[in-house]
């Protein structure tokens, strides 16, 4: 179990997990990013004082939105892959190909979102 293992953070750089490991890592990072964002989003709007409006100013900038959209779109598509592999375990045989399919969905969707965010952001 997880509580028994004794693996340091830096062992992750040596362990060559490849695509599935990168997806696992990005799922965790994007997940923590989203939960912190949503938590601050609730707090900033519940107490819309000086700190709240300062946080909202950061959240409304297009650079920050690019980051949030990366997290949300990646987390959703990777999560969908996890659900599909959990529902049909026979597909686990092709789990490495599943990662490539996943990026094939992620890249065009994120590109469209990024173009809209940047063009809206630069237009003011």
């Amino acid at each position, binding site marked *: 179990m*997880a*509580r028994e293992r004794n693996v340091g953070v830096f062992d992750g750089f040596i362990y060559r997990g490849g695509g599935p490991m990168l997806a696992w890592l990005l799922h*965790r990072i994007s*997940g*923590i990013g*989203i*939960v912190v964002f*949503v*938590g601050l989003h*609730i*707090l900033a*709007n*519940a107490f*819309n004082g000086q700190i709240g409006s300062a946080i909202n100013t950061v*959240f*409304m*900038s*297009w650079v920050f*939105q690019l980051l*949030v*959209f990366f997290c*949300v779109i990646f987390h*959703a598509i990777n*999560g*969908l892959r*996890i*659900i599909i592999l*959990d529902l049909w375990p026979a597909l686990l045989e092709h789990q490495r190909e599943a990662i490539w399919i996943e990026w094939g969905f992620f890249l065009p969707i994120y590109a469209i*979102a990024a173009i*809209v*965010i940047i063009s*809206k*952001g630069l237009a*003011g």
Partner: protein
Amino acid sequence: MENKFNFEGLAWKWMRYSAFLLIPLVWIHAIIQALIVGGHNLSLDYVAMRWAIWGWRVYDIFLLAFAFSHGMNGLRQVLMDFVKGSRPRRLLNGLIFFAWLLLTALGATAVIGGVRMP
């Protein structure tokens, strides 16, 4: 053993069920507010206009309930990989439960109470 209440098993299933619902809930929310309206155009007036329609308030309550329970349980899963010993783990479980309850209550109060102009 099969009939015993298993919280972790239930939480595991909850992550899948809520994720499936969150994909349309979060994406529609993000597309309307950030892409169509535009993040820099969001204001209290806009939120007041949107919440004049009760359907959007119900939508936001669903979004809050599913997203934040999914998120806090996910945060718990990640942190549990780094916390050892049953006492620190119980403490962490308690803290996360309290934070989840507090923020969900705050968010729900805002959605139900509506916009208060400063």
